[in-house]
């Protein structure tokens, strides 16, 4: 981190409901450029909701509070406008798009998101480099997006997009689930490459990704709120002790 902190994400008193059921209850969070934050919590604590609502998922209703991205209130931006502004969400279960080849998809996505998208040979060079870094075979490019992909293949494709789209804000939702240790290492390497120049939010159940991607801040989430924050040591503590000791704080 340089001397100047640059705020990328600010979440203020965020209340969110899905079908009138409150999920997030007054959450606050600030992430600056260069910082890696990890949010840990049980299933159903609202972790994925946070990532989705920041990205603008239409099923979530903000009932109170605000989300600011690079100083701008996000409420009026559509999902694709957020993507074009440099926000990125890596999905736990990315949708498959039958009939659309990965190569075509990546090229179109990069040219709509990046400010000065690489063209032709330049793009192919970048693509080849990123794919070899993630140990992805060229044959990926002619397969259909996530169609018939294994869990590990889907995650690699997500991280490939992270590398190519070069976002200011990377929201990584359960990126470690379903990966063996080799794949986890490759994915972590991808995240580490992008993290210094962007703001990263890692959502996870487990410590094991955080062994490979060192977070600056770890937050424990219970029942729609961050109840405790700390440094990387908190992740170890949560892994060891679980969340029960924090329940009173919620």
């Amino acid at each position, binding site marked *: 981190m340089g001397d100047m902190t640059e705020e990328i994400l600010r979440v203020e008193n965020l209340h969110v409901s899905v079908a009138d059921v409150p999920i997030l209850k007054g959450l606050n969070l600030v992430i600056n450029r260069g910082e890696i934050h990890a949010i840990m919590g049980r299933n159903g604590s609202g972790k994925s909701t946070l990532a989705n609502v920041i990205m603008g998922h*239409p099923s979530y209703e903000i009932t109170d509070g605000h989300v600011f991205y690079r100083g701008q209130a996000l409420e009026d931006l559509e999902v*694709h406008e957020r*993507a074009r502004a440099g926000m990125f969400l890596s999905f736990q279960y990315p*949708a498959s*798009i039958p*009939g659309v080849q990965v190569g075509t*998809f990546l090229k179109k996505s990069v040219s709509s*998101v990046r400010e000065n998208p690489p063209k032709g040979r330049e793009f192919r060079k970048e693509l080849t480099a990123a794919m070899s870094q993630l140990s992805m075979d060229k044959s990926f490019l002619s397969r*259909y997006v996530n169609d018939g992909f294994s869990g590990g293949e889907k995650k690699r494709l997500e991280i490939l997009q992270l590398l190519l*789209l070069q976002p200011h804000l990377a929201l990584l939702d359960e990126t470690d689930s379903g990966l063996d240790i080799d794949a986890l290492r490759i994915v972590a390497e991808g995240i580490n490459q992008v993290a210094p120049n962007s703001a990263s939010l890692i959502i996870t159940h487990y410590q094991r990704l955080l062994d490979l991607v060192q977070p600056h801040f770890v937050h424990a989430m219970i029942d729609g709120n961050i109840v405790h924050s700390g440094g990387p040591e908190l992740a170890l503590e949560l892994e060891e002790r679980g969340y029960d000791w924090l329940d009173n704080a919620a």
Partner: protein
Amino acid sequence: MVDDSQEIIGDYQYGFHDPEHSTIRFDKGLTEQVVRDISELKNEPEWMTDIRVKAYRHFVERVMPDWGNCSLLNMIDFENVTYFLRSSDKTEKSWDDVPDDIKNTFDRLGIPEAEQKWLGGVTAQYESEAVYHSIREDLEEQGVIFLDMDSGLKQYPEIVKKYFGTVVPHSDNKFSALNTAVWSGGSFLYIPKGVSVEMPVQAYFRINAKNMGQFERTLIIADEGSTIHYVEGCTAPNYSTDSLHSAVVELIAMKGAKIRYSTVQNWSSNVYNLVTKRAVAYQDAVVEWVDGNIGSKLTMKYPSVLLKGEGAHAEVISVAYAGEGQHQDTGAKVHHLASNTTSNILSKSISKGGGRSSYRGLLQVTPKSSGCRSKVVCDALILDEDSRSDTYPTMEIGNSSSDLEHEASVSKVSSDQLFYLMTRGFSEEEAMGLIVNGFFEPFTRELPMEYAVELNKLLELEMEGSIG
């Protein structure tokens, strides 16, 4: 001349029209005299006049189909159709000799450009007759005959007499009777034994006049061991009144021959498109129908193959896009009339904005045709609540030694797919376009590249302005 097309032209980029000009134009309406006049004008042999008159009488007696979209069918006013319109006195061999505004139309449609780049021959039909025709010299030297049907009848009457109406008899249905009575234009294609034509040949059909009836007739004969890829495209201006396109296409694939027939139908939404397409495949022959239906008001078309020789194979890949005010009633028919014949049918349809798509299929295996294999897959994608998709599959299986599979699915675009694509920078419309193109991909990948690109652009255009 009053231009009433502009207000309803919408997004349809081929909806422009030229001033109508004709050297011969028949009065609207159909009588036996009109049929005889067409034949006389074309200086046809008497046997063809007789076929026409017989077909006309059958057309008059034959009732309208009592299935399909009867309310739309019954709105056709046969008395308000121009059955013959000659817009140029000759079929030219050079684009420079084609009348200017007609040439401009084909320029705008990109035909001369495509011809130079990747086609082996081109027929361009405007209203009732071909205005331009050419074939590459090397194909001609190999004995390939590619003519418009009127010239085919003049130059090769014995071949035409032998095959005309043998695959689709005039009495097949009301519209095959109508076509046989008043046919004009279309393609006549003969590929000699063992000749493999590498570059596709193309026919382009353009209706320009209002209330026009276009009745082209195509006959393709692939002799033993030959191969051919025939491509056709079609467009028309948007008018507030209807036009009628009713073609008959007959394919004959001799022993070991291969015919691929690709269509991208993009008629404007005021055109009734009622077409009978059928092929006969003899021993070890292959017939492939690659059939795309994007335009028209009502299309009824079920490309068929009669597998008459052992080892013959049929492939029907079709897509249909039914937008607002459109009904695409399409499908496929395969008749396994010999043993060890195989077929694949893949049908994909998209309905949007209240459009309706129907799949109507027939798969027949006769009792003595043993060891046949067939696979039928029908997928429908419905983009909104107002739209509709139906499937009417019929199977008549006469023996137990055949292996048949049928799969059908109806799906909607999922909100997960849209959200995923939007997080990757695609607007909702672009995301929809991508999903739709992906859905049709098994079809588009079978098309020549130039057509595939064009079709994808077309579908993306259809998705624009559609999301509220």
